[in-house]
Every structure is written in structure tokens, then in C-alpha cells.
């Protein structure tokens, strides 16, 4: 598993919280995401998360039927383009506004559950006086 859990380490929350920093970083982030090239294969950012770990596997089972189907479809299209060594035609590139983090909230939910379980397992109980 990558360092910092399946979602990796991110300073996103802190950056968004700081307006000035957000104004400076946002264009760079947008440029970088575009540069990564996954959108040219029709993929979303969350399609690239490493899924071979219990947390993401659990989160994937919680996708609804349509999202699950669409994810597999995007992977198939991307794999086919990879075999062809070609990007999709420009009209079919994923638009930045369609690059939705559909899996991240579910992963965070599974992580929160695990955290809660750990917390309850190692609880020290003191009876209220």
C-alpha cells in the first residue's frame, strides 16, 4: 500500500483552506492533472488508485451498479487505446469537470470505519463519577 493509505499523502485540505495558496496552486494542479494524460484515455483520477488492498476492494464493492459498470468500461477503453499506442480522438477526452472523485469518499468511509474499530478495540474505559 502506498505511504499514507490508499489515497496517499495529500495537503489538499490545507491548501484549499488557505485562499491565497489555493489561488496559486490551483492552476498548477489543473495543468499537472492534464499533463498526466489519463484524461486522454477517457479515465478518471479515481480509476488509477491502486485497488489491490482490502480498503479499496471493500470500497469498490460499495459502488452502485452503474458506477461499477462505467469504471470497467473506462478501463477497457483505456486498455484498448494502450494496445493501439494511441490516445482517444480529442472529442472523446475526459473533460476536467467530468473528472469526479467517485471512489475517494467511499475509501474515506472504509478508512473511517477501520479507524473507529481500532479506536474501540484499544479503548480505555473509565466509568463516569
Amino acid at each position, binding site marked *: 500500500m502506498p505511504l499514507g493509505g490508499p489515497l496517499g499523502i495529500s495537503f489538499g485540505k490545507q491548501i484549499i483552506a488557505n485562499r491565497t495558496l489555493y489561488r496559486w496552486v490551483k492552476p498548477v494542479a489543473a495543468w499537472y492533472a492534464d499533463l498526466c494524460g489519463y484524461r486522454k484515455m477517457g479515465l478518471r483520477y479515481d480509476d488509477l488508485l491502486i485497488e489491490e488492498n482490502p480498503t479499496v476492494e471493500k470500497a469498490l*464493492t*460499495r459502488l*452502485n451498479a452503474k458506477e461499477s459498470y462505467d469504471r470497467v468500461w473506462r478501463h477497457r477503453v483505456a486498455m484498448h487505446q494502450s494496445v493501439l499506442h494511441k490516445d482517444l480522438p480529442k472529442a472523446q477526452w475526459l473533460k476536467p469537470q467530468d473528472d469526479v472523485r467517485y471512489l475517494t469518499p467511499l475509501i474515506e468511509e472504509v478508512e473511517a*470505519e477501520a479507524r*473507529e*474499530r481500532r479506536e*474501540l478495540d484499544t*479503548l480505555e474505559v473509565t466509568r463516569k463519577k
Partner: protein
Amino acid sequence: MLVQRRALAAAIRAHSSRTYATAPSGPTVFAQDNGQPTSSITVLVKAGSRFEPEGHAGIAHVLKHFSFKSSKERSALRTVREAELYGGILSATLTREYLALTADFLRGDEGFFLPLLASSVVSPKFVNHELHELVWPSVMTETANAIVSGEYTALELAHALAFRSGLGHALLNPPHAHAPSIEAVRDYASKAFTTSNVVIVGTGLTQEKLETLASHHFPLSSGTSLTSPATKYYGGSTVSPSLHPTLFVGYGIAGAPSAGLSTLAAHLAVKPHLPWSDGLSPLSSLPKSVSTESVLIPYSDATLFGVLISAKDSAGLRQGGEAVVKALKEAASGGLSQELAGRAKARAKFAAASLEEGKAGVLAKGAAQLEGKAWTNLVDQVEKLDVKALGKFTTDLMKTKPTVVALGDINTLPHADEIGL
């Protein structure tokens, strides 16, 4: 002048705030304290299988398994772990009429357990993945375990024959069903969890204490009461293949609980109240391989009465069925000896009195309060019944169509007319 006016305004404000402060109207509350060392609170919801909407058979069973799952206040895991820390027991029970969420705990812990129960009723989340990961597997397991029992299947078929829709609905989710959508569960819950369907019943708590707590923690919407058509008794006969030969012979009546039926059930009950004795029931003389059990299931507007017979084969069932019919006919002819009738009456009175004493009695009283009916104790009515009245009651009962369910080997199973009905 100004000071005076201000003082007056303040006085009016203070006064009006008192006048218009209304206590939040909570659901019905019923409590009984016998000074026992443990308390228990039950949230009784009129959401049994009887009220299932058309096309949603089994949704009450799913709702039962959704109790104590995630709510806005706490997750399913936290609910269980915290209850364990307090040494409490959480349970959910489903009958055809009510869903009961119960917490049993040590005296003094009601400040924790009532909000916990409330969170399951007032602010449940109904998360889709909980339906598929936690709720649905346990629903299917419970159904699968129930349907292998001949007794359960016989009683299910008996209810369906006796009452058709409403009380005839299957108690548990049908074994072949798919999981319902989370929206359907949410919809049923939003109709069921309203003030007019919920009564909070407490034992080991004072009424005032429970009322104060409930008015704080149960801000339910008033909503309309769930309704199902008034029950009518039909009766009928059916056979079904099964690995466990079982026969149900009985009758149902619509209306209030009847002293006659409970006396008949007591008359046919074989379980002796003394160890190592066979008892005096007319069914006690049956061979050991034929076991019988008298059944009396009261509902708010009907009662199902009968005898469940299980045996090794159809011949055993036939023998048991004939014995039951013979005993009923004997009672109908008024031919019961004073001694036997007295025994049956004493037994019925004891059953009614001991029911009233326990938690079941408190629940029944709470349910009666929700229905807006007065709780009636059968002890006095049974007392008034004599052999002649019992004979007349049984004759009238036997004029209605019996409910006969036979499970086992289809080729040889006894039918209603073959056991003398």
C-alpha cells in the same frame, strides 16, 4: 416612565415565554416499575408484516434487521460496543403486528439506552452497503433456518389460510426474494416510525422518568397510523411436501381475545406442570412418537388457536389429528367432566396471570394503549366459564371452517375430512 414601560415589557416577555413554551409532543409512553434490579425499554412500533405494502413482502423483516445499524449519532459498531460496555442487551423482535426494539440494562443506565434506542428510530441512516453487507445476509439466514422447521411452515400456512391478507402475510422474508431497494426500506420506515405508530414501554422505570426522557429524545413526526383491513377469519385446508411431517388443526376467530379459546388451548395442552407425569390432557394418551403442542396466538383483532402435531409419518399425524378432533367434539358436546374443565380453567387462568406479571404483559398493555383499547385480563372471564358455556362456545367454533395444514409425504397425508372435520 420609560423604566416602567421596560419593566412591563420584560414582565410580558417573561410571562408569554412561559405561556407559549410547549413541551415537544412525544409518542405514547407506558411504564411499570416493580422494583426489579434491571430495567428494560422497548420501542414498540406498529410495523409488523401485517402492514407491509403490496409488492413489498418481507420488508418488515428487513426493517427488523436494520435496527441498531448506523444512525446520525453513532455507527452500528459503536452502538454494539457501547451497549456492551454498559452491560446491556439490545434485541429486535418481529411479530405479525409489531416490531419491538428492546434494550435491557442495569437500573440507572436509561440515560444512555433511551437515546440509543431513539437513534435507531428517529435518525437511522439506512445505508445501502449496510443492507447488502450486514442486513440482507442475516435476513436470508434467518429465513433459511426458519423454513426447515415444520412447525414454522405449518403456522405460516395456517395464518395464510385463516386470515388471508393482513395477518396472513408471511412473518419473514420469502426465501426466493431479492433484496429490496434501500429506498423501499426507507419509505416503509418513514411511514412506520411516526408518533401514531410508536409506543415506548418501560419496565423498572417510573412513568415520569420515561416520559421526560422520551419527550426529549423522540422528536418523531406525527404522521398517519399504519392501517390494515380489519381481520376476518376464513379457514381452509392445504397439504404441502416437507421432510418434517407436521399437522396443524385449528380455528381462528376475529375480535377480542376470548376466554373460551384460551380454555380450550389449556385443555389440549399436554406439557405437564409436574415433572415425570403424563398430564391429564386428552392428548396425553397418544404414543410417544406423536408429539402435540397446543397453540394460542392472540393479535389485536383476532386469535389463532390450534394444535400442532408432529410425528414420524402420515399415520402418526392421522392418529394425532383424530385425537384432537375427538377431544374438541367431546368438549362441544358438553361431556367434559367438572374436574377436567376445572383443570383447563385453572391452567388458562395461570397462563393469563403469569403473562400479565412478566414483561410480555407490560408490552401487551403498552400495545393496547397504542391501539386505544383497554387491556382486559382473561382471568375473570375464564373464571365465569362453566362446562356448558365451554360446550356452547366449542360447538359454535366447530361450525366455522377449520384451518388444517398437513406437511409431509403428499401421497399419504391426512386431509381435513379424513380426520373427522
